[in-house]
């Protein structure tokens, strides 16, 4: 039973952070209808930023979030203004391959600068500490803080989108770019802003994740696919959708834990032979496929 | 037995009734106009008849067969062709190639498809444009090419959706001639959606009028032009009263 609760807790905590990772993707897609394959690379940039800032300044990793946010915002805006802006004029083939190019570029740039080995955070107030609640639930302090901060960031973005004038302008552009333009909303600036906010949310998520997940230049793809699965489930363009879908995907990532639970509970030894841990990411891809075929709109999506 | 019979056709989208209980029938080689203000549900009706969208309720009988449930490509194979109002050409195909696609419905051989396409293009006076890219043609020619493409499938019934939109007077005359030719000489039954009144009124034997999804009138062009319900739909109550005063 302990395994079950432990996995559930881990999944939910992870899920909240995953939700933040996916948030950027859904905003960009909602406003601009372009899919950013380099999304995971943005995350990676956030992770390196968080790590290096903490190491350089001796600050606690959790305080590096604003730095990561700024870097992410700039990265998003620069990508838009310098590249994406031109990309969207072309056919879809080109757009997809273009953002792939961006992905390769960022990934190999990181490889060049940082080398291929894993890096993790070693110092910090919360590193290595955890809370034991009983029933087998062990909450590592870093994950707990990350989850909490994710929720706060989520709320911040939600408030921004729904309560501020800028946010409403963004939503307007998302719903109907041309109409928004006629209303005097500058589409170009909205697009850049979407990329900025999108970039910032995912780099902040990165700075959070690096507290409990090692970073290397190649991890981008996995998180890009995770983000896609979340956005597909939650509905492309939906902010609350991303949150709930994030939780679900977080739980999916804990499948090895659930699998162990079922193995011991039902005492079917064949289950122990299945290398579920190696396959745990596979379920995310399967989930994406199944969702898109069965319910393309996702849970809350309004755009398809 | 009518050639095309539409019985109580209703189509709802998320609570909006785009087509409400529409019924009419056509004989072979008829030339019918379908008019009505914007948003009356004309294109939706087309979409239902040719299987593009499923109907919410009602029946469609074509050439003796109940085709209500058939999908678009199956309808095409039964002999219903159509043109589209908005044609965004991504510009890869030449005129000849485009018409050949239609012709390929009846043959697997490229040579036969090509011969069929060339014949249609000659018939509509478009043969000289064979090797031009469709996307680079002027609007009037594009519309005729789209009609030619639909003809490639050798349809028994052709639904023309606003083929005269954006054309000047001379071009309208040309397309009117093409439509008459297709109907009389090639024996194709035609329903046309139009806003260009001079075309519809001159060319149709009968006119059906839709408003807010329902059929409000049907008859000869002359009687429709005087029908107060039709005038009200297009111009509003005031003009009906003015008409009566005359």
């Amino acid at each position, binding site marked *: 039973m302990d395994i079950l609760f432990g996995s559930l807790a881990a999944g939910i905590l992870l899920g909240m952070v995953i939700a933040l990772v996916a948030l950027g993707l859904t905003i960009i897609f909602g406003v601009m209808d372009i899919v950013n394959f380099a999304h995971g690379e943005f995350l990676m940039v956030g992770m390196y930023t968080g790590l290096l800032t903490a190491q350089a300044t001796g600050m606690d990793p959790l305080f590096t979030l604003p730095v990561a946010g700024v870097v992410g915002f700039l990265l998003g805006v620069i990508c838009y203004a310098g590249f994406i802006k031109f990309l969207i004029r072309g056919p879809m083939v080109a757009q997809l391959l273009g953002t792939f190019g961006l992905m390769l570029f960022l990934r190999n740039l990181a490889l060049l600068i940082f080398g291929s080995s894993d890096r993790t955070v070693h110092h910090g107030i919360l590193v290595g500490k955890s809370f034991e609640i009983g029933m087998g639930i062990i909450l590592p302090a870093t994950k707990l803080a990350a989850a909490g901060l994710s929720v706060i960031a989520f709320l911040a973005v939600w408030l921004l989108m729904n309560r501020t004038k800028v946010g409403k302008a963004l939503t307007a552009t998302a719903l109907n770019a041309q109409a928004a333009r006629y209303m005097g909303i500058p589409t170009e600036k909205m697009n850049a802003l979407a990329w900025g906010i999108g970039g910032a949310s995912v780099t902040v998520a990165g700075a959070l994740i690096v507290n409990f997940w090692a970073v290397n230049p190649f991890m981008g793809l996995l998180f890009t696919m995770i983000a896609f699965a979340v956005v597909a489930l939650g509905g492309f363009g939906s902010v609350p959708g991303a949150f709930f879908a994030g939780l679900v995907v977080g739980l999916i990532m804990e499948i090895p834990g659930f699998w162990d639970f079922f193995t011991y509970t039902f005492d079917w030894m064949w289950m122990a032979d299945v290398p579920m841990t190696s396959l745990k990411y596979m379920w995310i891809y399967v989930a994406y*496929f199944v969702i898109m075929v069965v319910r393309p709109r996702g849970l809350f999506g309004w755009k398809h | 037995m009518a050639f095309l019979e539409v019985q109580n056709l209703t189509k709802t989208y998320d609570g909006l009734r785009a087509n409400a209980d529409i019924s009419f029938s056509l004989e072979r080689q008829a030339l019918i106009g379908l008019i009505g203000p914007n948003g009356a549900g004309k294109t939706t009706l087309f979409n239902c008849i040719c299987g593009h969208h499923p109907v919410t309720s009602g029946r469609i009988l074509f050439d003796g067969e109940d085709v209500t449930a058939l999908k678009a490509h199956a309808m095409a194979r039964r002999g219903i062709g159509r043109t*589209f109002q908005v044609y965004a050409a991504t510009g890869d195909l030449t005129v000849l190639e485009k018409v050949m696609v239609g012709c390929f419905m009846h043959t697997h051989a490229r040579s036969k498809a090509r011969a069929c396409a060339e014949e249609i293009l000659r018939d509509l006076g478009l043969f000289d444009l064979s090797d031009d890219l469709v996307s680079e043609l002027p609007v009037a020619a594009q519309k005729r090419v789209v009609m030619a493409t*639909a003809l490639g499938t050798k349809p028994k019934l052709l639904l023309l959706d606003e083929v005269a939109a954006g054309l000047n007077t001379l071009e309208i005359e040309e397309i009117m001639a093409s439509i008459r030719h297709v109907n009389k000489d090639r024996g194709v039954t035609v329903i046309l959606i139009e806003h260009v009144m001079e075309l519809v009124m001159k060319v149709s034997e009968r006119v059906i009028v839709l408003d807010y999804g329902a059929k409000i009138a049907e008859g000869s062009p002359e009687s429709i032009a005087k029908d107060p319900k039709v005038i009200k739909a297009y111009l509003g109550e005031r003009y009906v009263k003015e008409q009566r005063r005359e």
Partner: protein
Amino acid sequence: METLRNAFDFSDFPRMDLVIAGAVAFLFLIFPLFPTSSFAMATMIQFFMFALYGMGWNTIGGYGGQVDLGKAQYVGIGAYTTAVMLIRWDIPFWVSMPVGMAIAVIWSFIIGYPLFRLKGHYFAIATIATSLVLKDLFTVWSFVGAARGLEISPITYPPPDYLRLIFREDIYYYYTILGFFFLGFIYMNWFRKSRLGFQLRCIKDNEDMARSLGINVHWAKIKTYAIATAFVSMVGSFHVCYIKVIEPVDIMSLDLSILIALMAMLGGAGSLWGPIIGAGVLIPLRSYLKEWLGAAAGLVGIDLILYALIIMIVSAFEPRGIWGIVEKVRRRKRR
């Protein structure tokens, strides 16, 4: 027999194109007779392989306009089938390759049916998802060697072995892949003029209109996807006989899928020459960049960075590819 005549009929191309193509084809035939380095020969073999990969992709991605970024899984199926059949049951290449194609095509129909209900980005991501799933499965499946992969050792099968396609000198591989290349090319010429080819181009233009012309869009896409799969699996089988080592992480990787798509996209998707031009530019570029830059200490990854930049620039500013530029210039001259 009109089919065969069509396959060899190039008359709708301008004279100059055909002359150049003929000359190039001739050069391909006599290339090994020149004293070139083994590196050059290896690059040429790679070129033909990727030209074929690109041609296959071009059917569904270029003519059909459906961006498929999961072709690597079928490369893997082809390669693994050949490798497994050889290692376990000593079955020669000429049998295992068609079997591999058959398995790949069957799998492509199974995924294709639900897959083509999606469009655009969603479709593209789904193709990636399926490819990654297969890769992960192969990484844990002991029957195919799991993560370590499989190796064909030339010691067991003394070269030259024509049945099993094990050779010591590259020249045998060269002419084999060249043969496939010509076959593939002729096939593509037939394809673009075939009923399915026309249907696809119409689908790419406007799907609704295609339906109204009696085309079963879903089925046409699935059929074409299967054709692309067959191409790619065939080359995969060759790959394993040539390179003799395969691992899931390389042969079913997303990078390979992107590379395959890139051949046609750079050269000109939807045209006959496109994938060949694309491969002709990218493969030598890739090989020589790796040679010159990769060797220098601490510069690992720069070749890939340049590569990525090329992709970005082409997609943003000339999405129709090299052949697209040629056609644009020609059309302007015609006016």
